[in-house]
């Protein structure tokens, strides 16, 4: 179905906002200087203006056309993002191996093609590989096992 591409419009608006913010923020906080002696705020100000201008053009052109918007893969998007947020939170407490196992279980929710058994086996397999690469191989500076509070 061809409809107005709201993702593209949202992207353009976001660029306008970032550009306007960068321009105003550098105008307010950093010395502009002159062409011959540019201050730290000179280029960011113009880059911000330029970005806001491009953002405006993107919104304009996106408004004038119809397109087939990309489909959001919510399930995969949420599972992958949640895994990356959960991993650093778990690592400090549960150690590398247990955290990896749990995060992989979480990450497998992204795909609809797993069974419970293949989820567990994948998590086990990835944990073993992670142990070999990062603990045995690279000697990463993270606790391998859960940290006892104290």
């Amino acid at each position, binding site marked *: 179905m061809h409809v107005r591409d709201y*993702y*593209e419009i*949202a*992207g353009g608006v976001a*660029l306008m906002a*970032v*550009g306007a913010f*960068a321009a105003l*923020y*550098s105008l307010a906080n*950093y010395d502009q200087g002159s*062409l*011959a*002696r*540019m201050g*730290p705020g000179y*280029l*960011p100000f113009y*880059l911000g203006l*330029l*970005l806001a201008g*491009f*953002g405006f*053009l*993107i919104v304009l052109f996106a408004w004038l056309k119809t397109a087939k918007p*990309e489909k*959001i893969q919510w*399930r*995969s*998007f949420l*599972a*992958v*993002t949640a*895994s*990356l*947020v959960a*991993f*650093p939170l778990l*690592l400090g407490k549960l150690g590398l191996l247990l955290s*990896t196992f749990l*995060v*992989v279980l979480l*990450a*497998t929710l*992204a*795909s609809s*093609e*797993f069974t419970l058994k*293949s989820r567990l086996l*994948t998590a086990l*397999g*990835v944990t073993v*590989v*992670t142990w070999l*690469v*990062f603990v045995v191989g*690279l000697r*990463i*500076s*993270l606790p391998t096992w859960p940290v006892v509070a104290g």
Partner: protein
Amino acid sequence: MDALQSGLWLGLQTAIEPVTLLYCFIGVFLGTLIGVIPGIGVLAAISLLLPVTYHLPTVPAIVMLAGVFYGSQYGNSITSILLNLPGTPSSAVTCLDGSPMAKNGQAGLALFTNVSASFMGSVFGILVLVLFAPAIAALGLEFGPPEYFAVMLLGLVAASTMGGGSIIKGLAMVTLGLLLGTVGIDINSGISRFSFGVPQLFDGINIVALAMGVFGVTEVINGAASKSRGVPYSQFRLHSLLPKTAKEVTVTGMPILRGSCIGSFFGTLPGTGAGISSFIAYAMEKRMAKEPERFGKGAVEGVAAPESANNAAAITAFVPTLTLGIPGDVVMALVLGAMILHGVQPGPMLMSDHPDLFWGLIVSFGLGSLMLIILNLPLIKVWVTILRIPFRYLYPAILIFIALGVYSVSASLFDIAIVAGVGVLGYGMLLARFNPAPLLLGFVLGPLLEENFRRSLMLSHGDLSTFISRPISSAFLAACAALLVWSASSWLRRRRRHAKQATA
């Protein structure tokens, strides 16, 4: 000639050091592996390996990253031929005739042609690199800040207009990249820009986190959501890959030569690389063929020409990076980033300051290409087996490697969360069809661009005409303008055609 000989001799000594040789092998091996697996691209792979390079000496680190890049070209082609599943624009061209060949029972010949054409293309590219790099570096020594500014601007404009898709979006992404590149301490004034009091941002945004977020995480999200496909079962033995008649080899000779020339030329230009040169090489073969109707139905020239072109381009892409310090595309930008992390400033002085790196890298291209022949002919069965592993068993490991890779750079758990954040942004960009490649190029070039822009105007006392009055920089700027006008007009033409189709 003496300089060339002693350079190559030094390069050989550097490249055959066991540690360099080992990482060259790891690079081409991983490159082929990444290329074979549909769903993970060379950019994600190089971003994943950037943290590893922190733990390595400079030469093996760069040799490995380069190996991943040209090795992935081989792996991509295997998947294109056997599965008709292109991972990159350049391997989409290989699909056109490689896949019909496989369906006609000529998969072995297609794979053999891929390897031989790729190898010849690489060798040709190495020759071009050896012959022209010193001259371009000598020219680069004449460059002042205005010339550097102009050539970088050309690279950025080319990358945003040639990448396909909307030019405005490409330019917007470059601008955003430049802006992100200003985050951190400004070396001229010592003022920390856009860091909002967050100490982690004083050194700027971490390139590893940025690259992994926009390439790695986005690819994992997309790959995990896609349904797995069956892989046609086919049995390969070494002898089934070897050509049966001499004619099968000789017929590809001229296409390989033409493809190599095209690839070497377009590889050196900023913004154009493997993808475009394989399209042009394919189109040219089709035009020169006596029976153009064979193309698309399994013509062996249709595999030979684009494969030699994209591999030649993968090597000559190093010309502007090594001689001028200006990356022509994102892969080169990441390689450049890795060199800077190792305290090596790429540019005209690289050849004299770090001859071991320069020549060692060149010789390693040759050695790596030889390793790729072994990896791709006798070991083809390994790759066919790997092709059968569904992506869902791989992406959780990729995710863990992304997270721990970022952690190993900074020893900060906070950076893993940053990657998650950048990944969300990257996915948003994918939905809005914003290409992250120009963004990353702008990010890497941003500080260099600003530095040269400032210096130019300081030298000219604020007179902007300095960019136009100097012949080399005015030529580059004219090329920029021409590129913008040309792509704007072709975009308008496409739009008008679309409008006509819509009303018809």
